């Protein structure tokens, strides 16, 4: 335990020495060394006090014995040192001025023995701060921005903890998490001069402080109060973010009310179940009592007038227990605490730097494969070289895996937001809903989580608002009054799958068909499978709900879901059984950073067509091709007639194959927009890192970006919908083809 090292060893006095001893780990040479140094300093200071000096010298001697291994029973010698220091303290009492701040030597006073948190509101603060506020004149936008980001993180953590408290109100670790969140926000905002936030956070902290001290239980009204405080704080953070953009800094609605409530919740009739002074197993005193080293009433006496100093010191001074016993108890306490604190350490890195790193690693992989495929390496004679190149390849691939994993985040955060949403929505609708989450640790590309958030929100809203019935109807249907919403994420077949299922009433096929026919989306449901019918709800503006609520029913929701998932190159499927519930299954690629593509050649140029856009490719027979009105070319494939577009004409490429029967037709697009692109040949499948073409070029129709190919040159990625649109535009306007490509090839 060398974490307790004070900044300056010279400032040590005997009390600090005792603390140091208490925290000292016998087996650590560092600690022993530090103790030894402190003893030396104390010896030098105590030169005027012979009896103190004597005791200290003896202690030093014992310590040396421990360090050199001469002591047969280190523990016994250690207690002897403790006794000697105690003697020294007693001897010096009254001669050396007491330490100004003993607690300073212990950077992390263990919570249970720490001073009482500010539970009583300061009368000076009892008035709500004025409603108009300005950002402090000397506000540093950078600092503020960081504060907002950090604040959101704490709030997110606090929300998760508050929710876990819902089910387990005695979870002290969760209480501490929330407390810390409020506390940190309070501290930083006060530092930045953000009065509204710091005062609210202060009061919320006080509330949590009372929970932590077991003065009140975290249930009922108190839980709602804490959740509201989190909401308002979040709104305040948002207000600051907007204020940084030049907007006036507004207090969110309900700020004043909540501020008043927090001051004295009981006065506002918020239910309290005050528990009498409870027993915390973590307290030093309790450990001592449990071990039979001290009597409870004595410890409590000490605790009452411990004042500013840590309880351990107070106990030692009052001679309720010996230093060794206290040390032992403190160590036990720390062991318990440290097992709770084993958290992965992490640091924040700017996303653009990370993206650049991942890009560079991607290029490294390509560059390495260029080396590996170089003829000097491949064509024998250089066994040593080939071996080294192979070894580099392994490292590079591992590096790539690692860099990709850096951008992966677990679903946990997204799911927690849904938990909160479900709780609020159910509350509002008078329904009872349990959200069960599975696979929270499944990882997904960070950029995708953000995009996925909106679809998830709409799906959860839909499920709670329309899917799950009110408790009464559920009872009538013979179901439990509490609806179950299941949100699960898992990996399957190279995809990430997110499933949201409810046990509500399910989709109503007849109602959807009726609505679809009424709005002219379909003529009849003839030949439509359930799945096809259900997919109709993804159409914009489609809603079967008669009443529009403020939650859902405007018919925009499912459209958003579909668009969000399309943007992620994912698929969504619906399964529904009347009266049993409905399941949405979303399949997403693992990452957006890499595009699976088909490398095709047209003339001398190569293009990448994303595999997800390709239905199939085939070599047409002469009879299947026909020309309509001398211009539009069509091809017949399995009784389906589709237009043929020649990529080389669209892009003005020379030297390409003109005879379609010698080239290859690649079928892209969906439904009535399906068409066949003529290319010279397929060169194979390839994974590429999609990049923008650089700002100078702007949008090129039919091209979505570029990618570095295996030989280091840039290949253009075909934007399938763009190419189709371009071809149609050209066909209707009568322009046959356009040159534009410059003569450099």
């Amino acid at each position, binding site marked *: 335990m060398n974490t307790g090292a004070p900044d300056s060893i010279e400032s040590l006095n005997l009390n600090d020495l005792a603390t140091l001893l208490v925290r000292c780990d016998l087996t650590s040479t560092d600690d022993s060394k530090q103790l030894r140094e402190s003893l030396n300093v104390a010896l030098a200071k105590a030169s005027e006090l012979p009896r103190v000096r004597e005791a200290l010298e003896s202690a030093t001697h014992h310590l040396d014995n421990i360090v050199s291994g001469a002591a047969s029973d280190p523990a016994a010698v250690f207690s002897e040192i403790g006794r000697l220091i105690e003697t020294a303290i007693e001897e010096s009492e009254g001669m050396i001025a007491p330490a100004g701040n003993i607690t300073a030597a212990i950077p992390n006073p263990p919570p249970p023995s720490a001073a009482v948190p500010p539970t009583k509101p300061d009368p000076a603060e009892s008035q709500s701060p004025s409603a108009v506020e300005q950002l402090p004149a000397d506000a540093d936008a950078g600092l503020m921005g960081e504060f907002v980001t950090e604040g959101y993180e704490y709030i997110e953590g606090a929300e998760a903890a508050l929710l876990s408290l819902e089910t387990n109100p005695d979870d002290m670790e969760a209480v501490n998490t929330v407390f810390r969140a409020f506390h940190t926000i309070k501290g930083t905002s006060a530092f930045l001069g953000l009065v509204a936030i710091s005062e609210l956070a202060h009061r919320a902290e006080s509330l949590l402080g009372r929970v932590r001290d077991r003065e009140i239980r975290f249930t009922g009204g108190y839980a709602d109060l804490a959740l509201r405080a989190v909401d308002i704080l979040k709104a305040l953070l948002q207000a600051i973010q907007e204020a940084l953009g030049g907007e006036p800094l507004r207090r969110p609605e309900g700020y004043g009310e909540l501020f008043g409530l927090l001051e004295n919740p009981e006065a506002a009739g918020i239910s309290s179940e005050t528990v009498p002074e409870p027993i915390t197993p973590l307290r030093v005193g309790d450990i001592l009592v449990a071990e039979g080293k001290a009597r409870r009433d004595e410890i409590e006496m000490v605790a009452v007038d411990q004042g500013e100093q840590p309880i351990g010191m107070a106990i030692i001074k009052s001679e309720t227990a010996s230093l060794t016993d206290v040390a032992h108890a403190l160590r036990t306490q720390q062991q318990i605490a440290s097992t709770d604190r084993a958290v992965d350490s992490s640091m924040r890195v700017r996303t653009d730097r990370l993206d650049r790193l991942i*890009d*560079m690693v*991607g*290029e490294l992989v390509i560059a390495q494969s260029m080396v590996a495929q170089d003829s000097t390496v491949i064509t024998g004679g250089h066994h040593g070289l080939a071996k080294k190149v192979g070894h580099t390849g392994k490292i590079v691939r591992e590096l790539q895996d690692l860099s990709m994993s850096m951008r992966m985040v677990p679903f946990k955060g997204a799911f927690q937001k849904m938990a909160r949403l479900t709780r609020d929505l159910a509350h509002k609708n008078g329904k009872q809903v349990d959200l069960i989450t599975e696979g929270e640790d499944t990882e997904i590309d960070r950029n995708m989580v953000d995009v996925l958030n909106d679809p998830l929100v709409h799906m959860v809203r839909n499920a709670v608002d329309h899917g799950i019935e009110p408790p009464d109807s559920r009872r009538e249907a013979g179901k439990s009054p509490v609806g179950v919403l299941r949100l699960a994420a898992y990996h399957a077949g190279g995809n990430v799958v997110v499933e949201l299922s409810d046990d509500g009433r399910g989709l109503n096929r007849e109602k959807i068909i009726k609505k679809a026919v009424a709005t002219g989306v379909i003529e009849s449901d003839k030949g439509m499978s359930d799945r096809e019918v259900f997919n109709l709800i993804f159409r914009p503006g489609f809603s079967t709900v008669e009443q529009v609520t403020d939650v859902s029913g405007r018919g925009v929701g499912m459209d958003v879901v579909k668009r969000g998932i399309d943007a992620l190159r994912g698929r969504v499927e619906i399964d529904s059984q009347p009266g049993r519930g409905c399941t949405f299954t979303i399949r997403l690629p693992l990452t957006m950073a890499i595009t699976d593509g088909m490398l095709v050649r047209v003339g001398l*140029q190569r293009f990448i067509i994303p595999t997800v856009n390709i239905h199939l490719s085939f070599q047409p027979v002469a009879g299947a091709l026909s*020309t309509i009105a001398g211009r539009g*070319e069509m091809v017949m494939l399995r009784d389906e007639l589709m237009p043929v577009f020649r990529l080389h*004409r*669209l*892009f*003005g*490429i*020379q030297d390409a194959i*003109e005879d379609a029967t010698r080239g290859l037709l690649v079928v892209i697009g969906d439904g009535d927009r399906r068409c066949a692109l003529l290319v010279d040949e397929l060169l194979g499948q390839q994974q590429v890192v999609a*990049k*923008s*073409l*650089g*700002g*100078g*070029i*702007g*949008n*090129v*129709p*039919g*091209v979505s*970006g*570029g990618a*570095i190919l295996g030989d*280091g*040159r*840039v*290949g*253009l990625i075909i934007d399938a919908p763009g190419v189709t649109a*371009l071809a149609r*535009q*050209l066909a209707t*306007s*009568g*322009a*046959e*083809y*356009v*040159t*534009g*490509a*410059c*003569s*450099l*090839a």
Partner: protein
Amino acid sequence: MNRTGTDTATHNQTKHRSAGVDRTAGGSGGKFLTFFLRGEEYGLEILKVQEIIGMMGVTPVPRTPEFICGVINLRGKVIPIVDLRLKFGMESVEHTEETCIIVVQAQGLQIGIVVDKVSEVLDIAAEDIEEPPSFGTDVNTDYILGIGKSEGRVKLLLDIDRVLSNQDVSAISSTVTSEPSTQKVEETCSTQ
């Protein structure tokens, strides 16, 4: 980064130390990277130049103006390449050993420009730079910073931001998106 440029720059600095002051005072003097285009010498402000690379494989981008050669892979970054000859309406020529790409920072973007030959880095004092002459209304001289005189030769100093100005960029997108029919070019492709 621009190893060639910096070395020459340091070399020149010792020769014309006084000129460095002029840049701040007069605003138009300073160091220029000079290059050749159809036998004429041009200059670019050195601060706009990022690096000089040899000619490499350019991937043409369809449906862009003729002067945009395409894109290249600059150590993992895709950047567009402009042929300055075509941009200035000169005839295109075969690339030689001396053909170079100068990577410039123009309007916050990295763009490569193809030139016939890179010459040197010159310190030109403000008093040696003359206003661009007026050729009448037909000739647009907006993109010329001035005419620099050095060792008895004349250099056209370019305002690269204007040369590769936004108008060009927007011109590109408008030609390809708005009215494709006006883009109709003579049929070189055999009819089906």
